[in-house]
């Protein structure tokens, strides 16, 4: 009977991590549905970007209030994970405060964790107030109605509860240590939880142990639950921000990618010696001609799909978007949310059909993202600049415009006129190319 808690703990741990691993596999499979893209260049710059933007949070502090509060939660979570490591070992081996032998260092660590836990609680409360009381603009946009709003609050609640459990566990432990209870050796410093101790005053040793054990179990089970909630929430950024900033755009923001398939065709068209009826070269793969642009998630590249999973719906992109600021339907955040929702739908379709995607009569274009949104973009890159984790909503918008124009000939009429002007006389306006130098003498 002595080993029952250890076994239960091991089972919980295996289930928690196992289920998470299963979802990570699904996540990776979904991301790989995207087209391949070469991101093997500029390795050192990429590492630097990751260190600066994800690890160093440099773009978060552009907005100081949210940025500094976010750093508290971020540092809190990373550092408190050292404690989680001890908790896991204690759980598996049936020990209590395994690292207590570190002595003064241990006291320092536990003390710091407590202060961080308190700061996380403060930050989380302010975040909740910003979302629900102050109702900051970017949190109440149309795409945030319903689940996204609940999701955002849910994460704050979980973080609040986890930190409270951690402090409660410590308070009970501290009290037990002072009572000299068996197994509760003097260890740790409790600068924050000492203030909870008075609430536990008068409890018997066994009640205190019950409080301590309950808080301990709920805390670690809560962490495992949170780990598994990630995949279903907008909160994957705590993991994906790192690869996402690594694979983020390195080139100048104004440089849009070149479509190699188009280059091939244009070269053929411009080469007077090319025979348009020639049989394809021996090693040239025949098959369906490549689709230009994107109408669904599989037409995007995998970095764009990774972008979609990384988005935590903070809305900084949308609040910087000139189209959105002037009341247009376009919201770069919605572009990312739609991409992810559609990708999830495709993933579930595959799960239900033995790993094969069965066409469902839906696509990203029109069923999720409307043409009105796509055509409202000024390609100004404000959204790309604003994103604290290097997401590029603009690249998706452009890819979908390419589909509309090159596959569907469905550009707005005025743009079609502009483009035929370029075709006919080399300028977006209907002027004669021979008049290009008239300005000199006017």
């Amino acid at each position: 009977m002595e080993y029952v808690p250890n076994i239960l703990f091991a089972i919980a741990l295996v289930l928690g991590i196992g289920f998470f691993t299963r979802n990570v596999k699904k996540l990776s499979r979904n991301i790989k549905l995207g087209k391949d893209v070469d991101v093997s260049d500029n390795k050192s710059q990429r590492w630097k970007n990751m260190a600066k933007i994800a690890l160093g949070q440099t773009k978060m502090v552009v907005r100081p209030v949210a940025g500094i509060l976010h750093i508290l939660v971020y540092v809190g979570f990373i550092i408190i994970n050292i404690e989680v490591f001890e908790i896991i070992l204690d759980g598996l081996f049936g020990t209590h405060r395994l690292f207590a032998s570190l002595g003064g260092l241990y006291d320092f660590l536990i003390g710091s964790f407590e202060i961080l836990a308190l700061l996380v609680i403060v930050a989380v409360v302010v975040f909740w107030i910003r979302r629900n009381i102050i109702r900051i603009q970017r949190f109440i946009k149309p795409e945030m109605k319903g689940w996204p709003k609940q999701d955002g609050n849910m994460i704050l609640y979980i973080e609040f509860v986890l930190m409270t459990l951690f402090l409660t566990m410590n308070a009970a432990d501290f009290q037990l240590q002072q009572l000299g209870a068996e197994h509760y050796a003097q260890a740790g410093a409790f600068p924050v939880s000492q203030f909870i101790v008075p609430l536990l005053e008068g409890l018997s040793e066994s009640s205190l142990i019950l409080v301590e054990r309950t808080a301990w179990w709920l805390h670690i089970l809560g962490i495992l639950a949170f780990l598994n909630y990630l995949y279903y929430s907008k909160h994957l950024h705590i993991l994906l921000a790192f690869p996402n900033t690594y694979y983020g755009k390195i080139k100048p923001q104004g440089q849009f990618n070149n479509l190699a398939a188009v280059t091939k065709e244009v070269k053929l068209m411009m080469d007077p010696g090319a025979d348009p009826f020639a049989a394809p070269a021996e090693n040239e793969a025949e098959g369906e001609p490549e689709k230009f642009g994107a109408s669904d998630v599989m037409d995007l590249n995998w970095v764009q799909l990774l972008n979609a999973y990384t988005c935590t719906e903070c809305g900084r992109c949308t609040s910087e978007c000139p189209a959105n600021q002037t009341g247009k339907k376009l919201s770069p955040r919605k572009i990312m949310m739609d991409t992810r929702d559609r990708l999830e739908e495709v993933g579930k379709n595959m799960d239900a059909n033995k790993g094969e995607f069965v066409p469902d009569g839906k696509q990203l274009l029109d069923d999720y993202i409307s043409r009105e949104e796509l055509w409202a973009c000024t390609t100004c890159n404000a959204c790309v600049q604003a994103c604290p984790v290097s997401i590029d909503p603009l690249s998706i918008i452009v890819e979908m415009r390419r589909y509309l124009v090159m596959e569907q000939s469905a550009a707005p009429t005025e743009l079609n006129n502009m483009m035929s002007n370029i075709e006919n006389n080399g300028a977006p306006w209907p002027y004669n190319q021979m008049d290009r130098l008239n300005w000199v003498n006017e």
Partner: protein
Amino acid sequence: MSEQLIVKTMEEFMAEGKQPEILFWVGSAGSYDDRAKKISRAFVKLLNKANVDFAVLGPEESSTGDVAKRAGNEFLFQMQAMMNIELLNGYEIKRIVTCDPHSFNTLKNEYPELGGNYEVLHHTQYLKELLDNGRLTIEGKEYKGKRITFHDPCYLGRANSVFEAPREVLSKTNAELVEMKRHKKTALCCGAGGAQMFKEPEKGDMDINVLRTKDALETQPNIIATGCPYCNTMMTDGIKAHEKEESVSVMDLAELLANSI
């Protein structure tokens, strides 16, 4: 009829067996748009003043295809790009200067992959070079003490991180530079980018250029300076929407400098 400008085409240079120092890429707006033509003229006035041996392509120049690419028409873009590259490479062009940040961006960043490798400068960068090496000197009386705000064009600023050259050029006019709240990396778009210039905006509650002009007017400027023909149009329209066309004007940096000689 204003003063005579000296402008030679690349064809003429070839006939003489000479190479120009730079090629001035005029761009479609600079060639045809009435307002932008004045910017081309002002820039050439400065080039003439500094005795720069420059060429234009004239009737051989054709749209860079930039706007087609932003609209999603990669075919048309690449057709235009390859025709232009054939021409530019045929003339062995090394250095290109343009007053249009959109041409600047696409020539600089998007042409190399299609075989066009040139050193490309925005006119403010080139003017800064002329000022720095003393080829161009400015008296700087015309705008002394005037309040001027500079609107960063997206494709010059955010897209290519050129922030200082336009500001240094502006400082030579001895005007007082007043920055808008959102400037440099966080500058708001004028509303013309991404092919918006050529279509009506989608339904909304305001036009982007009106919002951006509001930013500019908050600095209480005498002049709004731009470095892009499209921004110029948008801001000029914005000024009209705010009924400020009597008191505030919109001018390109080349014009400000040309008037300060």
